[in-house]
């Protein structure tokens, strides 16, 4: 489903961001990517939703390869991905339901099909009663739920969450994490980048630990095997 093979990423100004990163993610899996700031977690996610292309190696997502993906193919791929960020990235001048509907409108969903899908997504994240609220009228945790509803509304096969709890207090963090677990339990894969080790330790989900742009630990394999793969 998602496969990174010997991926490297270099930026002209800041240098090497990723080096020899290889891993695969299966359908329906829950995977954490952990590591300190600057370890390369967000870069891995950006490469997966093909916001950037690797300098070396190959990223393959749902049959689409980074080597030959066109802008149109990338747009089509993103309709099958749900992407969530630390800072929610909602449109402040639209209500919660309008923010969720936006993802359907701009991808050409028929008008009549939009309201039921939006209602279902908001209900799924527990915000059906606050559908007409604007982002500023919602708490941080609620805003992140709206962002997750927007990510879910197109029925993605994977949710890519980049530090989704980074701006939240402990209670909201638990709520969002549980929501992502529920989404995963319903069959959608989740790839979550976080530096919250308490969260990681609270489950037995697969963990990829990154440092200095490399995967230094994959809980599904031994460290040695990862390093061997890199060689």
């Amino acid at each position, binding site marked *: 489903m998602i496969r990174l093979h010997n991926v490297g990423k270099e930026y002209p100004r800041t240098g090497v961001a990723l080096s020899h990163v290889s891993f695969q993610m299966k359908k329906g899996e829950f995977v954490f990517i952990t590591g300190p700031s600057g370890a390369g977690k967000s870069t891995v996610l950006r490469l997966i939703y093909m916001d950037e292309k690797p300098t070396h190696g190959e990223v393959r997502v749902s049959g689409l390869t980074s080597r030959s993906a066109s802008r*149109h193919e990338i747009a089509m*791929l*993103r309709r*099958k991905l749900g*992407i969530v960020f630390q800072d929610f990235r909602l449109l402040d001048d639209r209500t919660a339901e309008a923010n969720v509907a*936006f*993802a359907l409108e*701009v991808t050409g969903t028929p008008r009549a099909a939009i309201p039921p899908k939006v209602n279902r997504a908001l209900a799924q994240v527990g915000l059906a009663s606050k559908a007409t609220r604007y982002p500023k009228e919602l708490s941080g945790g609620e805003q992140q739920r709206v962002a997750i509803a927007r990510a879910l509304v197109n029925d993605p096969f994977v949710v890519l969450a980049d530090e989704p709890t980074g701006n939240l207090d402990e209670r909201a963090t638990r709520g969002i994490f549980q929501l992502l677990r529920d989404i995963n339990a319903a069959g959608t894969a989740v790839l979550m980048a976080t530096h919250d080790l308490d969260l990681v330790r609270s489950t037995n989900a697969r963990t990829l630990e990154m440092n200095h742009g490399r995967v230094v630990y994959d809980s599904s394999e031994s460290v040695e095997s990862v390093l061997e793969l890199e060689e």
Partner: protein
Amino acid sequence: MRLALREAFAAFRRAPLLSALGIVTIAFSLFAFGLFALVALNIRSALVAVEERVEIRAFVAEGTSVEAVAAAMGDIGSFPEVAQVLYVTPEQALERARRELGEFADVFESAFLPASMDIRLRPGFRDPATVRGVASRLSTYEFVDDVRYGQEWVQKLYDLRTLATVTGMGLGVAFAAVAVIIIGATIRTAVLARSREIWIMRLVGATDWFIRAPFLIEGFMKGVMGGALALGLTWLAHRTISRNFIETVFFDTDVALLGVLVGALMGFLGSMFSVGRHLRQV
């Protein structure tokens, strides 16, 4: 398409001041363009009036028979370039000279001026080469003493016309380019103001054309509105000049509509370049 239209209209509602600024900027750049076009149009129209006075005069030798002149006039009148041939007797020539050179009227006391055939050419045949060609054919008649057509004057008139056309086109293209750049800049401001929205659109899988469409429509509409405003301002300028200084001509309806359409096209192109550049960066 419906969403693109809705988003384009929403852009006016969300940022009315920015939109108004964009329309006024487009209007002023097109107004400058329109003013110049108006000047060029009036120069051209004045030149056409002057051009109508291009005339070839073939002086007839003294003692030539009326029959010979009449036969030649029939012959000359059938030239495709010739619109009219008039025979001017020595008496008529004297009368004309007295009329045209009033202050020297006393000098002209007797019919010493020769008779002539005055030839006017059809529109499209008044260029120096054609005039020269007709003149040289006239000089082949044995009874024609001399042919005058203000060779230098015709050449200068044509040079002036060519200069006005080339300058008009050059400045027109320059003004159009400036207008496209200004429109591009105003749309770019709108694009930057909505960069978060564009980013989210890309994130959820909107295609580039889908993202571009509202901006292209917005640019088109701003171009139409700016063009209409510029047309109104140019008309006002035309009326003011006509009322207070000299009578001027204004664009035909077709040309005026074409001007607004050019505005719309510039708005569209400005948007296309601007959004295209932004999309390549995000």
